[in-house]
């Protein structure tokens, strides 16, 4: 079965001009850190423009503590509830973004203990999207965000989430609500994850949202892209298109040891041994996951260097070239060789 290429397949990172060659260790000098700001002046910095969502918690299971430790070490934030990290040793808890899903009470401890807070416009399963009932469509969105900011003491960066492919009006409502970041989420209801359509949807969603931010005078509003990105190159192109950080769960998932096999063994053991609990061997390290995440960061540094940049803040759509005229027309990215 043939699959049509995605928009991202038709885009390449292009060098501005050849720079003097650097040794591989000098790539560490390339700055990949990003930050979220609050109006009160608080700055939350991430070492890398990537993040992981707590959905990976179920799959990580016995390896959860170790995964959290790796994320902390690499400076990659985690979207998770307090309950998902409360058993993780304090020294291993990464920067945590708490989430309030649709139709749930706000939790004061979450708001106060989290490093950042996302008001999600979807349910806990990520499928049912809509404005919360308490904000009457989106009429009171700005007031609600401002009141929540007051209740949190103004120190916690607040964000909103929208589905990828949200309308211009919905994106504008979120941008105008004075939030500190916006999350664009892939919804499993719209198409199968990992398809070329997903990559195209992610590319167009980011481009569209960034365009609205620029038009509304908030060009620097952080856009967190939560889509199943499976390759480091895709993530880098999405960052160049306007995303501030990209979810790398799909890559982490692939590198995690198979818990499905452990689970089936456990069930078998349970049925055979009755009340005896199965012994699951604890995992003390996840070399594949750590290597995978380090590779993503290294790929980003290499791509930035290739494009002649020393700071991720300089990465934008000018660093991309289009291999196809139709994609160039659709995205506004200049065709390769036009420079």
């Amino acid at each position: 079965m043939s699959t049509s290429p995605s928009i991202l397949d038709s885009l390449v990172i292009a060098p501005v001009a050849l720079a003097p060659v650097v040794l591989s260790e000098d790539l560490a000098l390339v700055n990949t850190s990003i930050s979220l700001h609050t109006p009160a002046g608080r700055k939350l910095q991430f070492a890398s423009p990537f993040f992981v969502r707590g959905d990976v918690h179920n799959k990580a299971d016995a390896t959860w503590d170790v995964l959290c430790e790796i994320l902390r070490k690499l400076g990659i934030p985690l979207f998770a509830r307090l309950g998902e990290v409360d058993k993780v040793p304090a020294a291993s808890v990464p920067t945590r973004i708490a989430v309030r899903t649709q139709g749930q009470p706000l939790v004061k401890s979450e708001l106060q203990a989290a490093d950042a807070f996302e008001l999600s416009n979807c349910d806990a399963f990520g499928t049912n999207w809509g404005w919360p009932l308490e904000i009457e469509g989106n009429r009171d969105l700005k007031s609600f965000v401002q009141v929540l900011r007051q209740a949190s003491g103004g120190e916690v960066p607040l964000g909103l989430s929208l589905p990828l492919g949200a309308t211009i009006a919905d994106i504008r409502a979120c941008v105008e609500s004075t939030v500190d970041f916006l999350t664009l989420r892939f919804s499993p209801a719209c198409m199968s994850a990992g398809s070329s359509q997903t990559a195209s949807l992610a590319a167009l969603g980011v481009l569209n949202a960034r365009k609205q931010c620029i038009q509304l005078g908030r060009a620097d509003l952080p856009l967190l892209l939560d889509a199943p990105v499976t390759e480091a190159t895709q993530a880098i192109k999405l960052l160049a298109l306007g995303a501030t950080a990209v979810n790398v769960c799909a890559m982490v998932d692939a590198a995690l040891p198979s818990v499905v096999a452990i689970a089936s063994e456990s069930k078998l053991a349970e049925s055979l041994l009755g009340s005896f609990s199965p012994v699951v061997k604890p995992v003390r390290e996840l070399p594949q996951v750590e290597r995978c995440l380090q590779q993503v960061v290294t790929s980003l540094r290499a791509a930035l260097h290739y494009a002649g940049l020393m700071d991720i803040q300089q990465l934008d759509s000018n660093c991309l070239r289009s291999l196809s005229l139709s994609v160039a027309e659709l995205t506004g990215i200049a065709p390769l060789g036009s420079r």
Partner: protein
Amino acid sequence: MTDEPPLATLSLAQFSVTEIGQRLRTWDIGSSQQVTIVDAAKQTGLAVGLSAALNIAIQGDVGDFSFMLNENADFDVHGDVGRCIGHSMVSGYVLVHGSAGDLFGAYACGGVLAAIGGAGNRCGLGLAGADVIVRSDVGDEAGLGMTSGALVLGKSTGDQLGLGMTGGTIYVRGAVKSLADGIREQRMKDSDTMRLSLLLARAGVRAASKEFRAYRAIKLRGEK
């Protein structure tokens, strides 16, 4: 001579809602637990995120989203209140001498909210453990999506009472315009009567608990 604590007064004509909120969140309980807020004129987001055990009297009308995430503080509002009062409240007491807007007590997890007047639509939205008492009429979809707690309605209710409700109890004294699917009137047990009497007394509402009817969501077979 009595040792009554000194009364602190904050005026919304003098300070903004943000400034008053900041003062109340960092209030020194030792100085005074009694605070009066005057000149309230429907300002949005008054006294949100409080944790101190303060007794706050408010003169005037209170705006939308006020008392959100309140913990421990008691409010006595001499006026009407806007939409979404006491959102996600954890504990404490809100007594409104006037009427409440839509979404009174939305997602409140604990404490008691009482309105002596009526309340708008979707009163007790997603109620998750708190008790909400409304002496007069309420609008449509009261108790929408509530999961636990008690909603006490002293007069008539609008359409679709208890829509999407999965837990908790709604007590109604007046007429019910229409019930949502899956909601049934159930016999008042002794525990209901006792609980209701305490709630009515707490809100200062004079009514006999035997005049009320209890409504709950029907549990499907196998549900706990």
